[in-house]
């Protein structure tokens, strides 16, 4: 399982695509899927936070996502689709709660809002990453072009 910094070292091209798509709007936005108690997927938007070394997410204490990740850390996260162009970026792996106040404070300092103290703070470790572009979009010859990274 890799940190964002380790993904950058292993595949700087993929990490660059990911960072660009995560930050394409004024506020970093993505969809995150988690596993419900019954094992079915749950899906909601979130505001991830990205540093040079880590990919993080704050989760309100009332969110079902918090219970999901506390019980089963597996997640999948997909960037929003760009308004122009057809490009996708997706990572999946495991989330780990971060309780270190210094790490949290550093993240809050760079985040677009100050999360309430009771919002849980998770680092998203990466097992696999996928960047997709499309050739001949919206034609019968549409073809995906994949760039992948997976933990060895």
């Amino acid at each position: 399982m890799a940190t964002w910094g380790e993904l950058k070292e292993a595949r700087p091209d993929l990490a660059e695509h990911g960072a660009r798509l995560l930050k394409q709007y004024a506020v970093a936005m993505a969809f995150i899927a988690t596993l419900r108690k019954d094992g079915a997927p749950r899906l909601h938007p979130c505001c991830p936070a990205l540093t040079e070394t880590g990919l993080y997410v704050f989760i309100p204490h009332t969110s079902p996502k918090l219970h999901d990740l506390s019980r089963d850390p597996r997640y999948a996260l997909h960037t929003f689709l760009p308004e122009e162009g057809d490009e996708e970026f997706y990572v999946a792996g495991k989330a780990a709660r971060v309780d270190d106040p210094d790490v949290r404070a550093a993240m809050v300092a760079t985040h677009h809002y100050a999360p309430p103290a009771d919002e849980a703070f998770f680092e998203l470790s990466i097992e696999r990453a996928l960047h997709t572009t499309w050739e001949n979009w919206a034609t019968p010859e549409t073809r995906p072009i994949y760039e992948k990274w997976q933990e060895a």
Partner: protein
Amino acid sequence: MVRWEQFEKEMPELAALAKRLLWHESQKNNFAFLATEGAGGRLRLHPICPTFSEGGLYHVAEGKTPKKRDLLNDGRYAMHALLNPGGEPGSQFYVYGRAVLANDPENRAKVESTYQGWKFSEDETVFELLLERVLHTDYVDGTGYIHTKWRAGGTS
């Protein structure tokens, strides 16, 4: 677990809003994100172009995509409309349920006809997305998030 038409019958205004949130006029298509679960709880998450045909909500899984394997193996899904596509700030539409194979030739032809210029290849497979629960969330200035929930068999 029910068809879209049952949800539409019980919650017509919410169903109409959901259709507006899914539709992207600029691309003449519906767009959403679909989460599925693969072997061993491996989560997958990708954009899709769902469609409506004769009271049903459908997804067409292309070729040999892992999503198709997930839906054939388990079928449970979660689908979320993209955010703010129709000028309704903060409005979010989310549904989860189970996908079932709906790939008979007659139904394939009906679903295919809802897409402009898309001719299904043999290995493209039609799934109907049955609904278990729906959640609509709206953000209202000064009030916060307003949630409207529906579940098959009883509105909450």
